């Protein structure tokens, strides 16, 4: 394809400042490293962030989140019609959508894909849990393969029936975990487990297709010709290397071997390199973008000194909260605030819906005198706080945070807390048995809706939380909020958050910040809280 000269006035590229020209480079190959190979590219089985970052460029669903994190129609022509009772969603599909092998996409393909996603029970299969018929399909020895709530009256109409009004259903449909993406029945039926491992059979509707893969070494993608969507991809090829050591990847980036670092979910760069680049001549290439991940400390609400929701246990919890100077923590453990930011706006990360507000979380305050007073009152002889352990898993950042917390509690409270590193694999198993007293907890949101946090973490018996906290009021509020659409539900979620704050349920620590390096000649590359900007919007300018 001939090089197109673009005459732009005023706006420069997203990343970096002022390249030499605005002409497109001849070689439109986008190269970046990842440090862990993908687990799977099957939309129904996606789990890790790196998998999703690739899959969003290879597959499409009915709706998607755009770069600015708005829900926009993708294969659907427009936003769906919702029935008055909130139970029926009608999607009208575009008529020009084709798979990369040329086959057209119809509503039947969607039905097949959603049925399969429910039956296969991947990690995010529960995104479809509100659809009628879900329990039958996912029962232990199910023979039913078809979700009865799905129907396709004609080739380009797709109707979904829900079992309850679900305010966050569209978010789940658009989520970049792509459970709801469409796959080609032809190839998937033939090789249900390995169709996505080979370039010939990895058929999707996205602007790019995989052309080569050396497991644990590299991946190569190429743009699909005459792609049906917009914007049409400018990049011809994408080359990805799997490099273990991110320091070496950054060194190679500086050698000109890569165009960006941080794409593919690898946005936690070594702090030393971030600091070095920040202090060097190329600091405009570094971008700090908040991610959707929060880290905090959980208490054990079933046994130990923090057991009761009210009373001296609550004072004790508050004491431990107030004894942490989060600014110092972030300064030390997060490389002077480049890899994370203080979590002073509630547990839901900044930039997401449900964020309480900058510095609005009273639990994030620092007041060592008050803390000591509370400790004195709650535990006058020190017996309750004599054998505390703090559990964490052994990654670099977590180690640094744990050490800092330990030294701050020692200094500001006079309490010694042991650090115990528990391997990731055993962490949850042991946490479920309530063997811990304090534990590091983190959560990365799956999509931008408070429901993701509350249902998975905060309600009684939540699937991914093991602190044993239980508050019926909170549960009732959340159930109510989940049924409403987001604008009305906001207030309920805020109230629920306030209940947790009043009960001093957690010690907020930090929000994760992603670091990205972009070469100045890249245009259209970037990242938001959840995902990297799509590849079809990226252009490489002459350099």
């Amino acid at each position: 394809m001939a090089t197109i000269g673009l005459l732009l006035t005023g706006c420069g590229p997203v990343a970096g400042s002022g390249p030499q020209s605005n002409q497109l480079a001849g070689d439109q190959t986008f190269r970046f490293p990842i440090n862990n190979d993908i687990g799977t590219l099957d939309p129904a089985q996606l789990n890790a962030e790196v998998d999703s970052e690739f899959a969003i460029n290879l597959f499409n669903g009915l709706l998607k989140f755009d770069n600015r994190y708005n829900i926009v129609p993708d294969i659907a022509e427009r936003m769906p019609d919702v029935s008055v009772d909130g139970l029926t969603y009608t999607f009208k599909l575009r008529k020009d959508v084709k798979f990369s092998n040329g086959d057209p996409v119809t509503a039947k393909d969607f039905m097949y894909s959603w049925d399969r996603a429910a039956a296969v029970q991947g990690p995010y299969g529960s995104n479809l849990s509100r659809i009628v018929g879900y329990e039958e399909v996912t029962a232990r020895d199910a023979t039913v393969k078809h979700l009865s709530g799905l129907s396709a009256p004609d080739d380009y109409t797709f109707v979904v029936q829900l079992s309850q009004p679900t305010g966050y259903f569209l978010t789940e449909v658009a989520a970049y975990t792509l459970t709801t993406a469409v796959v080609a029945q032809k190839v998937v039926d033939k090789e249900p487990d390995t169709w996505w491992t080979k370039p010939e059979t990895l058929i999707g509707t996205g602007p790019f297709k995989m052309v080569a893969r050396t497991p644990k070494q590299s991946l190569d993608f190429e743009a699909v010709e005459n792609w049906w969507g917009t914007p049409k991809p400018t990049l011809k090829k994408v080359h990805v290397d799997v490099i273990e050591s991110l320091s070496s990847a950054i060194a190679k980036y500086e050698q000109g071997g890569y165009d960006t670092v941080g794409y593919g979910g690898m946005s936690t760069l070594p702090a030393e390199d971030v600091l070095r680049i920040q202090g060097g001549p190329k600091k405009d290439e570094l971008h700090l973008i908040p991610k959707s991940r929060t880290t905090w400390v959980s208490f054990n609400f079933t046994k130990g000194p923090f057991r009761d929701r009210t009373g001296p246990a609550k004072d004790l919890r508050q004491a431990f909260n107030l004894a942490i100077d989060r600014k110092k923590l972030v300064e030390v453990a997060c490389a002077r605030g480049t890899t994370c930011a203080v979590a002073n706006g509630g547990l839901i990360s900044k930039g997401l819906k449900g964020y309480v507000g900058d510095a609005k979380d009273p639990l994030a305050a620092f007041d060592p005198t008050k803390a000591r007073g509370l400790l004195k009152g709650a535990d006058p002889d020190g017996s309750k706080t004599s054998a505390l352990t703090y559990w964490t898993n052994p990654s670099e950042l977590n180690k640094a945070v744990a050490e800092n917390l330990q030294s701050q509690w020692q200094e500001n409270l006079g309490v010694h807390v042991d650090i115990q590193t528990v391997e990731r694999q055993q962490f949850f198993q042991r946490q479920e048995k309530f063997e811990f007293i304090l534990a590091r907890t983190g959560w990365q949101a799956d999509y931008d809706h408070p429901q993701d946090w509350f249902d998975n973490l905060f309600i009684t018996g939540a699937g991914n939380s093991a602190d044993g906290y239980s508050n019926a009021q909170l549960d009732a509020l959340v159930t109510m909020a989940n049924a409403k659409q987001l604008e009305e539900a906001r207030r309920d979620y805020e109230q629920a958050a306030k209940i947790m704050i009043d009960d001093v349920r957690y010690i907020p620590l930090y929000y994760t910040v992603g670091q990205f390096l972009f070469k100045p000649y890249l245009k259209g590359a970037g990242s938001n809280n959840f995902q990297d900007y799509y590849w079809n919007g990226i252009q490489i300018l002459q350099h």
Partner: protein
Amino acid sequence: MLTRGTLSYLGQRLAFLAFTAIAVSSLVFLGVHQLPGNAFLSDRRIDPNALAALLHHYHLDLPLLEQYRLFVIGILHGDLGESLVNRGVKITPLLLREATVSAEVGAAALVVTIGLGMVLGVVAAVRHNTVVDYVATTTAVVGFSMPNFVIASLLVVVFAVWLYNTTGGAFYYELGWHGTHGNLSQIPVPAFALGFPYASIVARLTRASMLDVIGQDYVRTARAKGLPERIVIMRHALRNALIPVVSVLGPLVVGIITGSVVIENIFGIPGLGKEFVTSILNRDYNIVIGVFTVYAVLIGLANLLVDMLYTAIDPRIHY
């Protein structure tokens, strides 16, 4: 030289090797199944149905004996299974490819070790008790006294960063690895980082045995005959000084294999060492078993080769 005795010895050793491979992999298999937790647990709890589906796919829901039986049958066919973390990736072709990569770098490292070590040793022996001797010995010892990741980091800083900046990108060491066999320019620096620490052992050995040999009568005879010193050293003295070096070749290969774990990580080379670390970090137990097995086989082969080399070098030894 290829007598019946040698062949039967070879056969014995190969059989022992196969037995060792199966024994090691069985041991590791049992070992990983004792470890708590599995590869599927992580920060977020996995749906019990999804977990059941995963376990079923990998035969992990079968009783241990049954799993072991399937495993042994697989090994005898050369199939080490599928990766737990990276779905759909068959382990045997993965490890074979990575073994090729590691072997390339490892062979280059061996050349560096033996070459550099012997040069240093010979120079130190010939210029004995002079400044050259001390410098050579000390250089060798330095390599052995620093952690190899420090040496590797320094090399990266010098060759990948500083050289690139100084020559403006014209001349530098390119990190990473192209394709299966890499570029020729990507091998020397990692090979040096890998081989240098062991060069001191070779240097020390060569120096000692050269000193021993130089005092011998036949060397004196050669000198008396009027041969130039260079020929005396290279042709007459060096050959006999080689024998102790060959004897240490086995542990040398093992040391290079261990060192490759760090070097491949730092230089971004997709080899067995990197795979070893990654699989353990990710708790990808199938690959862990596979890597252990491949390592055991490689070490056995290396030791076998060294023993065979002995017979080639020293005619007094035969099996």
